[in-house]
């Protein structure tokens, strides 16, 4: 079952891309589509980032200075939605598009037209979402978790467009995941066994499965909202025999797996980069696969740890507490394996490695605060405070976002054929690293001291830490302009990259030229021992 690429209307199948703008609109090429996803994600990252800076500017001092409370909460909501659905998820899908076919030796993604469809839905979905700013009633103002009845009975009319926007994103994610799963299951080079695949491919296989399992549930919950709002159904209205807490159950049944959707591909990236720069094989490959599967399984049965204070039965709280704590075990296995990979390695610290090492350390901090939150009586205190904000930002920013940045630095030479400027890359890393910690570390303390999240004003005793936080946020925000500059500079030129790019790199993608040709594996690769790094 060898695979060879073939085209309509072309004798020669080694042709390159079309010219002009339409190339990007009509393309079916996995690399083009990967690029589109990555740029889209970057634009969303900057947009969501600007919203975050509005929030941090308002919180720089106690009292109301810059924005109205109503606008503040719209900013908070849109920041969360855009970062989760617009920045982090599309970035990982973009990386999957670029890398999965190259890593498994496939000619392209399994369903190339649907691939284009999954991408092009996204700009429409986010236009719909962002358009609500200019509509009557303003943008969604119920937080990214959109709890009913805030998002039903008390929502602005624009909630309807929010709902359809979520439907569109869901459709995009489902089609994208189907494509990735099918590519991995059906398009591997002949002879490439599942347990030979790079971990990035493995983690994406499991992520795609999670997406297929929970995106429809998200679609279900927003549909229930839609019906409650426009057709007087009673899903979330106790007056009709429904229950607002039902919303939280359905939402978090999606929501908790969703947080793993945003971190499993990151695990895969870090598992590719650390061995390269430690110049050792990944420690415990098989246990990494099993741990990832275990995490995915557990992620389905812990959702109500987000609802300890919502009034669920005490037995339920006990169960969800212990189940949540179990996740720490497979997560611990992973952290152990990364550290063991570095142990006695010949390490060098190029930019991707810096981001990856920072990932291991800072993600662990986020995981540990997660464990604290899983303790029911403690969570009664922490819930809806800045401690939760600190927790999920530690797992999402130096977790998911750092891994994406690491991936960009690591594979950019393969994509563009040029090396990025190492000194600038390191500068970018250190500015981000300092910025992020200055922003979020103090929030642990304000949270423990009782500062609630999602408010534009706060008590005076929180003033100092908030000021520090805001300074860190602006530092982090502005250092991303440097990131943009470095990427543009690398695309335009720079030291030529070799095929292998990094001395210690293993994997099929490093066996083809840099920049990777438009069609990488027109005939399937033979050197499969290379595949798993």
């Amino acid at each position, binding site marked *: 079952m060898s695979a060879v690429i073939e085209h309509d209307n072309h004798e020669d199948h080694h042709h390159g891309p*079309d010219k002009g703008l339409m190339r990007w609109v*009509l393309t079916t090429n996995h690399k083009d589509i990967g690029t589109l996803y990555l740029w889209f994600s970057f634009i969303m990252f900057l947009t969501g980032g600007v919203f975050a800076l509005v929030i941090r500017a308002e919180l720089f001092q106690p009292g109301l200075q810059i924005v109205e409370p109503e606008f503040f909460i719209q900013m908070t909501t849109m920041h969360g939605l855009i970062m989760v659905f617009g920045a982090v998820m599309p970035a990982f899908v973009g990386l999957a598009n670029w890398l999965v076919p190259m890593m498994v030796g496939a000619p392209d993604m*399994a369903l*190339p037209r649907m691939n284009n469809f999954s991408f092009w839905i996204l700009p429409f979905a986010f236009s719909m979402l962002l358009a609500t700013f200019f509509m009557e009633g303003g943008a969604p103002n119920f937080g990214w978790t959109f709890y009913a009845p805030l998002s039903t009975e008390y929502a602005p009319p624009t909630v309807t467009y929010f709902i359809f926007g979520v439907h569109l994103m869901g*459709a995009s994610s489902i089609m994208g995941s189907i494509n990735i799963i099918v590519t991995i299951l059906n398009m591997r080079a002949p002879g490439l066994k599942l347990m030979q695949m790079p971990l990035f491919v493995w983690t994406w296989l499991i992520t795609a499965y999670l997406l297929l399992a929970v995106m*429809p549930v998200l*679609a*279900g919950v927003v549909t229930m909202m839609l019906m409650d709002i426009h057709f007087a159904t009673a899903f979330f209205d106790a007056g009709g025999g*429904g229950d607002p807490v039902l919303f939280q159950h359905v939402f978090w049944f999606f929501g908790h797996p969703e947080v793993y959707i945003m971190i499993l591909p990151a695990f895969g990236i870090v598992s590719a980069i650390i061995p390269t720069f430690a110049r050792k094989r990944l420690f415990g490959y098989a246990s990494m696969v099993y741990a990832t599967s275990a995490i995915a399984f557990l992620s389905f049965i812990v959702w109500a740890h987000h609802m300890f204070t919502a009034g669920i039965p005490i037995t339920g709280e006990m169960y969800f507490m212990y189940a949540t704590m179990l996740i720490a075990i497979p997560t611990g296995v992973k952290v152990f394996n990364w550290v063991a990979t570095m142990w006695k390695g010949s390490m060098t610290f190029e930019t991707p490695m810096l981001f990856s090492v920072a990932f291991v350390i800072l993600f662990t901090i986020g995981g540990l605060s997660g464990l604290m939150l899983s303790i029911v009586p403690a969570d009664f205190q922490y819930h809806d405070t800045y401690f939760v904000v600190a927790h999920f930002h530690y797992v999402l920013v130096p977790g998911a976002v750092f891994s994406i940045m690491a991936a960009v630095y690591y594979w950019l030479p393969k994509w563009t054929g040029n090396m990025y400027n190492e000194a600038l890359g390191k500068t970018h890393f250190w500015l981000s690293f300092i910025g992020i910690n200055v922003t979020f570390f103090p929030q642990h303390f304000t949270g423990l001291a009782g500062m609630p999240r999602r408010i534009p004003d706060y008590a005076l005793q929180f003033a100092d830490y908030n000021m520090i936080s805001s300074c860190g946020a602006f530092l982090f925000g502005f250092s991303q302009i440097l990131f943009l500059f470095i990427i543009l500079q690398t695309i335009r030129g720079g030291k030529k990259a070799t095929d292998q790019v990094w001395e210690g790199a293993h994997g099929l993608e490093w066996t083809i030229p840099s920049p990777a040709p438009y069609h990488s594996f027109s005939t399937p690769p033979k050197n499969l021992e290379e595949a798993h790094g």
Partner: protein
Amino acid sequence: MSEQSYEAYYVPHNSKLPIFASLGIFLTLFGIGSILNDMTAGVEHSAGTWVVLVGGLVLGFTLFYWFATVIEENQQKLYSDQMNRSYVWAMAWFIFSEVMFFMAFFGALFYVRFWVVGWLGGEGDRGPSDMLWPAYTPEWPLMSNPEADKFVGPAEVIPSLQLPLVNTMLLITSSFTVTIAHHAIKEGNRKKLINWLAATIALGLIFLVVQGYEYYHAYVDLGLTLASGIYGTTFFMLTGFHGAHVTIGTFMLIVMLGRALKGHFDADDCFGFEAASWYWHFVDVVWVGLFIFVYLLGGGPTGF
């Protein structure tokens, strides 16, 4: 296309279809959104109607053309076995995602029945809902709701062993007929294929008519509506989404019938038919779940 001794994976060079589909789906949803908002705000004529019309046309034509293209490529034998396997996997995972969509609604039903109703009646030690309506005694199906003027309860609910039982038999039979049609392809017996496929479609259409009649009866005679509280909510949302899927499934089967009449499908290349029939089986299984949990164990009268 060059002759190759090895298998080739077909990758179209580029395609105008997805961008039009994206535009169409965007306009359709945006239009529906403005219609709904106007409806809820009490605006008479919604400009959204035009947007839906344009969007629906763009989406409809694009999807039609898209499927036509795929079928055409398949007829030209552009697809290798590996390509066909991609479609098989894709369809299987798509159905999995559909199952999860229904799970959300079944989950809501179970949650309401097992917990919410009890809490409304004062069970459990933390039922704020009981504090809101201390005099209220709930009994499933809820014939009156805690907030009785906002949600007017139904007079009666649909008995399970009458029309729903008929519908169950219709759909189960149709699962068999579609399987016979499948065997007919394998045997290369086109006449048998066409007859049994047509029978399946007929069963699906009768199901839809019966369902339509049941809805009419519920709305007009029984006062059971979407707005009559959580029983009506779960009842109509579950059966309604199922009905929508039967409609899609029947449509798929009709397309397959058209293809069968044109001479498509043979024993080793009938993915389109198989996809439609899996979808049909999936729709049947969901119905069996509905029949058991919404009707039979749904707490209403059996009507027997």
